[in-house]
């Protein structure tokens, strides 16, 4: 009996691998799949390897969920959707190559993805020349500006201007006006500082120092005495990932928290889980999504429950939820447009008013930035409901175009 099954399986595997081999290796082979109704393919380049592998894997999980929902609901007139995941290795050159592969070989209809400012700009460059819709799910200010923007470019994620602005407006009002920046010396850090300063200027903040450190620095001990001597009310940590973790840990050990509020423009669920409760205790930051939003927002509850069911009780992370929304908005637009034709889907996306997981959202006319709320969260070490309960949502800045840079400022003609 077991032999029979084994044989059957073996035959299947052999057949499948032969077919796969034939379709991938030989350029002349007939594509078996195209004989049936072709699926709607969504290319999904994310950095599965590299510093943000954990975040990227969650992006994939959540995006798969959006695909499954679409297919379970019958697809688009029976056409199913398919996610084609590629590893961009957090490298803009690799990302451009992978995007070319997705467009030229896999013939994807749309591209959603990325997790780095430089990578999304590189993908966007490839897609806009080839007239393919790209919905970016990673932070960047540059992608809104007229130089990089095209009508094929959509930006589902927050941008530094919104995030840092929201965090600044909350923190400067609550904790004080004397501010020090500790900034990773690259585009991300600079954009965040600019966001904080724009928000802080009308509030009358006093910037005591903007201390720059090289990206990937391991030792912050030389900056900490200087920061302590300046006695700021708020220390803005404009760095990301491991840099944020290291600087927060060392500032905690140094005792800086007793006099100064630590603030990070982007406080990720994943980095808080990796960093531990002690180090991040009391740190305030911004995020696009945190699962406890389900207490107040019904659509968040729906997403969380589906995610829990699909992935053994886990909750979606912030970047994961963006992956979900990025894919879902494209697929919803396909349904609304009644077509996979690029121009028609663009029109449908521009008209879209959606509430997929965090409240009402829509894409702004001039730069296709998703107008959405920003959550301000505070990390906690006590009163945790379970191991996933790491933040308190202390404030939600409502969605509004006033929180974005104006279209004119970005160089768009009204």
């Amino acid at each position: 009996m077991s032999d029979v099954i084994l044989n059957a399986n073996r035959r299947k595997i052999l057949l499948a691998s032969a077919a796969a081999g034939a379709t991938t290796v030989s350029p002349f082979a007939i594509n078996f799949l195209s004989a049936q109704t072709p699926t709607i393919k969504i290319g999904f380049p994310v950095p599965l390897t590299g510093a943000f592998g954990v975040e990227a894997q969650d992006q994939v999980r959540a995006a798969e969920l959006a695909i499954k929902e679409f297919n379970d609901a019958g697809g688009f007139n029976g056409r199913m959707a398919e996610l084609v995941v590629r590893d961009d290795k957090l490298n803009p050159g690799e990302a451009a190559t992978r995007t070319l592969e997705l467009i030229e070989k896999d013939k994807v209809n749309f591209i959603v993805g990325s997790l780095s400012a430089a990578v999304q700009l590189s993908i966007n460059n490839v897609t806009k020349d080839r007239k393919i819709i790209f919905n970016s799910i990673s932070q960047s200010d540059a992608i809104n500006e007229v130089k990089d923007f095209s009508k094929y470019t959509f930006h589902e994620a927050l941008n530094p201007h919104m995030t840092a602005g929201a965090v600044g407006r909350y923190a400067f009002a609550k904790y004080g006006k004397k501010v020090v920046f500790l900034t990773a010396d690259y585009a991300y850090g600079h954009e965040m500082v600019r966001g904080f300063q724009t928000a802080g200027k009308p509030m009358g903040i006093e910037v005591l120092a903007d201390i720059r450190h090289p990206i990937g620095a391991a030792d912050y001990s030389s900056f900490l005495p200087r920061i302590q001597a300046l006695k700021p009310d708020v220390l803005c940590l404009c760095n990301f990932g491991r840099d944020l973790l290291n600087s927060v840990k060392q500032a905690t050990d140094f005792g800086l928290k007793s006099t100064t509020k630590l603030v990070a423009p982007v406080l990720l669920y994943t980095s808080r889980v990796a960093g531990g409760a002690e180090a991040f205790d009391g740190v305030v930051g911004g995020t696009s999504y945190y699962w406890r939003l389900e207490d107040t927002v019904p659509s968040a509850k729906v997403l969380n429950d589906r995610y829990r069911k699909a992935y053994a009780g886990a909750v979606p992370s912030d970047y994961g939820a963006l992956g979900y929304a990025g894919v879902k908005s494209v697929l919803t637009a396909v349904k609304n447009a009644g077509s996979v034709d690029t121009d028609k889907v663009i029109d449908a996306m521009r008209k879209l008013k959606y509430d997929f997981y965090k409240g009402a959202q829509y894409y702004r006319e001039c730069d296709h930035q998703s107008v959405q709320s920003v959550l301000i969260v505070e990390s906690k070490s006590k009163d945790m409901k379970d191991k996933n309960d790491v933040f308190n949502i202390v404030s939600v800045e409502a969605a509004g175009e006033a929180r974005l840079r104006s279209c004119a400022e970005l160089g768009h003609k009204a």
Partner: protein
Amino acid sequence: MKPFIALVTRHRVLAVIAFLLVFPLIMPYSALAVNVLIFGLFAVGLNVLFGYTGLLSFGHAAFLGVGGYLTGISMLSFGLPWWLALPIGVIASALVGLVMGWLAIRTRGIYFSMVTLALAQCVYFIFYKAERWTGGENGLRGIKVEPVQMGGLTFDLLNPLTKYYFILAFVALALWFVSRLLASPFGAVMETIRENEKRAAACGFDVARSKLLAFVLSAAICGLAGGLRALHLSIVPIDSLHYLTSGQAIMMCLLGGMGTFFGPFVGAAAFLLIEEGATNFTSHWQLVTGVVFIVFVLFFPKGIWGSLLERMKRS
């Protein structure tokens, strides 16, 4: 077999080009084939210095990057057409090579490698900081080649195969040049320097100047690879100046067989294909490339192509 080998060896450029003409048909997708062309040329450029002159440079990413950036900047900031921008990139690379070479050839062995590494890092930070021109961390973006009109025909680089053959034309030209260079008396001088520097000097060759010339030519070829990469990807990422990119070229040279004409190409193809294959089933693809590299260094020190050549000669 023997006459065939003899024929191929005599017309090595034609043989390589004939192979490269059908190459995209056996590759999984053409963007990867273009990458092999570009990195193959990059490794060939390094091989001129490393394989033939015996100087191991850890800073060749500087030339790939400078070639790419200057090509891109000429097109974006000065609105030049691609056929003017590309030579500008090559010349800029050669000039940077002249400066770096002039400083580096005073040293030998590991010190030479360290000096080239340090100077390449300087270049990296200059381009990183010049955000207005280079886009800094975000990279240089928006390089677009309009369809090329040539003899009544239109070549649109948005078509993947057209782009491959467009880039192959330049690579073929560069390969012909390298082959010519190696067959020239100067090529013999380079190999003499590699084998025995003192003896080369005793024979009356100006060793320092020959080394410098080899350095500059090598830089120019790598600059061409960089310029073509800018046209291919329509961006120049800051990573193209990173020292890891230099390391990649060295790995490709060693994997394929340094000091052989076609080796670097084989190395580039092998490296990129292994990476491609490994990435599709594990996120630990570096482990696979690393193990393959170690195996080759330990058991096939002449590289894939070098070992093959040796076997063919013996049989």
